[in-house]
């Protein structure tokens, strides 16, 4: 299915782009993360397991168990530090 992936802050810098359109076979956000890690550089170190990576699905804070759907907007970012 076709989705949009967005990256912010240190993860955006590590991946080297702010967003991209993807065609993925992943069923969940966690599956998508694994798929991106499997690409190797620069995704593997940016999204590595054990790193504090937060996720949003269609602009709502989410977790890896959340199901992907056609046209979804997924975001990967580090813990937030506003205020």
């Amino acid at each position, binding site marked *: 299915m076709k989705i949009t992936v*967005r990256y*912010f*802050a*240190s993860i955006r810098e590590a991946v080297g782009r702010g967003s991209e359109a993807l065609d993925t076979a992943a069923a969940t956000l966690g599956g998508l993360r694994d798929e991106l890690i499997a690409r190797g550089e620069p995704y593997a170190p940016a999204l590595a397991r054990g790193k*504090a990576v*937060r996720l*949003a699905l269609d*602009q*709502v*804070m989410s*977790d890896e168990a959340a199901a992907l759907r056609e046209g979804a907007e997924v*975001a990967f*970012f*580090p*813990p*937030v*530090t*506003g*205020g």
Partner: protein
Amino acid sequence: MDTVARVVIQEQDFDLSAEVAALRGRDTGVGAVCCFVGTVRDRNDGASVSTLELEHYPGMTEKAIEAMIDEAMRRFDIRAARVVHRIGPLQPQEQIVLVAVTSAHRGESFQACEFLMDYLKTQAPFWKKEQTPTGARWVDARVSDDAALARWGIASRNG
């Protein structure tokens, strides 16, 4: 009152008096206004900070803060709330964020203001990057921020 946006993300500075006047509007039932203003410090984690750059997630940021204000309205007997958050490069002493709340009596707006700030620190998609003498660095989330939100019975997935 209803025409004033509850959430504003902007590069430019804000004027506290003007913001409070807009928030109060024509509401004659307001007996208390509680405001929190966050400002840029010149030191953080043992290093001097010359510039603080704020990045956000356009669209999601506004939605997340709107949801927080809705939650504050459910939890506390408040009349109105407004959040102004700046983005872009900021210098020490500059204002970063305003949380302003009105209520009939002070207790509710004090509580709601703190609740909104605790919520915002851990749930609104903003990130800070500091310029220090040894280079730029992203600010790490604090465990204490998650603990602050936990006081309100909300588990954070942030820190």
